[in-house]
């Protein structure tokens, strides 16, 4: 076994190498400082952590299963694939690990009003769910186009008592929903807690959201050891939009160089057409409060992303992924809309699991990744969400 990799990002200013930071209007500076302090105290406190883990166990349904995918493995070659079943979390995706953590923090800070942005609606549903569970007012910003293609999740959020506000500016997708949520926060800093849904945004969000999702990778370690006798697989695979499910799975393995890490972005209609492959095709830039890779034109205007998967349809990416790319610690590739639809069918037919379109990108990438793993090697894929919400899109394309 090779020596472990030194990795301690972010620094105290929230920087992952050159990336991250807090590029925000002055109004948000005191709020972010208060949030940093509250998070640091909470994460060092056993009381907070016990409460968080108790909710993950009794409300979210953790630990989620690690499922051996024999029929999928057989199709793909001489490998043993495991699925980390975040699709079995309450609400149907990994997103709730983070919203549980953030709403506990919101309560601790005495905030009474919760806001969130959402793309696919999974983070919106996960936020509306915990807001209902704790009896807090909840407003979710969602692009008008996304509300169309994820109508089921809109209905779920409303049933849970949240107000879903349609965002009609710009591309009417996740980027613009995030703009509106930040504008709401700028206008209501005193009583409002902004629950960001990915490892994006200004410091401390990327490190905080990572902390709340690390349970994915930590469980994987102990479950894999129980199943195979080895805690470390040969490779980990996860889809990357903002990058939260990927960071949650990868982070506990980051200092173990024998574990190859693969992040899969959305290539949309192809990397020469409309896509959302920020790391593959973007350049460093500032969006939503952090320096990271960004899809932008030569004038520094943010370009519209495209993906069949609303959850990956974002022109930015978490700053930690930018740093992991530059360090070459994670290998990032991209999968097209058509390949993702194949991924949905592949996992459905071989394992009886209908994955979310986001997750399907990771599944579809496996056929390229198996060649880079030793014969008989072990691969864990983050099965980040279930596909019920995407049935309309899937049916329209089949």
């Amino acid at each position, binding site marked *: 076994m090779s020596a472990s990799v030194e990795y301690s990002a972010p620094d105290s200013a929230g920087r992952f190498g050159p990336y991250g930071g807090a590029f925000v*209007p*002055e109004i948000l500076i005191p*709020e972010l400082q208060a949030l940093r302090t509250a998070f640091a105290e909470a994460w060092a406190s056993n009381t907070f952590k016990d409460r968080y883990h108790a909710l993950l166990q009794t409300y979210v349904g953790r630990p989620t299963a690690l499922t051996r995918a024999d029929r999928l493995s057989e199709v793909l070659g001489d490998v043993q694939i495991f699925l980390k079943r975040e699709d079995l979390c309450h609400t149907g995706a990994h997103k709730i690990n983070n919203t549980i953590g953030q709403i506990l923090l919101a309560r601790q800070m005495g905030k009474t009003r919760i806001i969130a942005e959402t793309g696919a609606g999974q983070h919106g549903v996960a936020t509306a769910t915990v807001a209902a569970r704790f009896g807090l007012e909840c407003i979710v910003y969602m692009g008008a186009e996304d509300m169309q293609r994820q109508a089921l999740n809109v209905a779920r959020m409303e049933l849970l008592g949240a107000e879903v506000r349609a965002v009609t500016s710009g591309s009417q997708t996740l980027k613009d929903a995030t703009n509106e949520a930040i504008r709401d926060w700028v206008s209501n800093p005193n009583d409002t807690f902004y629950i960001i849904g990915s490892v994006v945004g200004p410091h401390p969000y990327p490190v905080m959201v990572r902390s709340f999702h690390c349970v994915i990778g930590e469980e994987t370690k102990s479950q894999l050891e129980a199943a195979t006798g080895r805690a470390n697989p040969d490779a980990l695979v996860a889809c990357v939009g903002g990058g939260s499910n990927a960071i949650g799975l990868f982070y506990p393995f980051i200092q173990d160089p024998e574990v190859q890490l693969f992040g899969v972005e959305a290539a949309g209609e192809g990397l020469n057409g409309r896509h959302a492959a920020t790391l593959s095709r973007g350049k460093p830039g500032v969006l939503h409060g952090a320096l990271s890779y960004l899809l932008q034109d030569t004038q520094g205007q943010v370009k519209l992303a495209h993906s069949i998967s609303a959850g990956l349809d974002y022109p930015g990416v978490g700053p930690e992924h930018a740093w992991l790319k530059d360090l070459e610690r994670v290998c990032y590739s991209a999968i097209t809309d058509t390949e993702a639809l194949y991924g949905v069918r592949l996992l459905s037919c071989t394992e009886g699991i209908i994955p979310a379109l986001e997750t399907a990108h990771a599944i579809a990438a496996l056929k390229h990744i198996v060649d880079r793993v030793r014969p008989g090697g072990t691969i864990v894929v983050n099965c980040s969400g279930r596909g019920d919400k995407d049935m309309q899109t899937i049916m329209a394309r089949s």
Partner: protein
Amino acid sequence: MTSRLTRRLGELRAANEKAMGIFVTNGFPTLQDTPGVLRALAAGGADFVELGMPFSDPLAEGLPIQRSSARALAGGVTMEDAFRCAADFRMSCDIPLLLMGYVNPILQYGPEAFCQLARESGIDGLIVPDLPPEESALLSDYAFRVGLDLIFLAAPNTSDTRIQKIDRMTTGFVYAVSITGLTGSGLNGRMQAIESYLERVRGLVTLNPLLVGFGIRSHEDARRLTRNTDGFIVGSALVRQIEALWENGSLSDMQRLSRVEAFVCTLKNGQDCT
């Protein structure tokens, strides 16, 4: 060396006069209109002008400036256009000219080249609302090297010690954001809170002039908020005015520009003095 902005604000202070800064988006309504609009602002009595560099995702802006930015970008406005507009303005006007915009287009242009070209085009300073002091190292050295002021903002929820820090780091003036909100937000019902906040800031800002902005729509707003400040800045209200004037098909461009001039003059003096 004293900058044109510092000199101008100093002269106004000595004359016991409040400074008026006016913001307008470059390329709004169209790129052809901007040079005329800038001259009208100066003719109407603006003490300095902020030329907005539009960005696709302007986080601190309310709807009027969001709309003007989107319209300018749809018209294809670039950073080079801002420099050209500035150089054109400099040929006929001597009041300070600032560029206001978000950090990403500056980063893509290259901060060093950006500062150099801005200075050569006659720009006097920069306001970058998503670049707080903690992140300003990306730009500040280049700006100072060529003599561009870099203006930082304070907000109602900024602590006393932080306001003092901002006063030490800013050049030109301290920009007090009137409310916790977006540009163009209403001030109704908040006046007392704003005044006591400005009184607090007045006591803490000792090294620079203090100007207030966000939500100021009228001469009355301006008069009230300059009791404890050295001047005020208006943006969204002018942008709304321009929107309406250019939508009105019965007006000629000359008439539109003279109404812009009258609007600005009324902001400063309480009556149309053109």
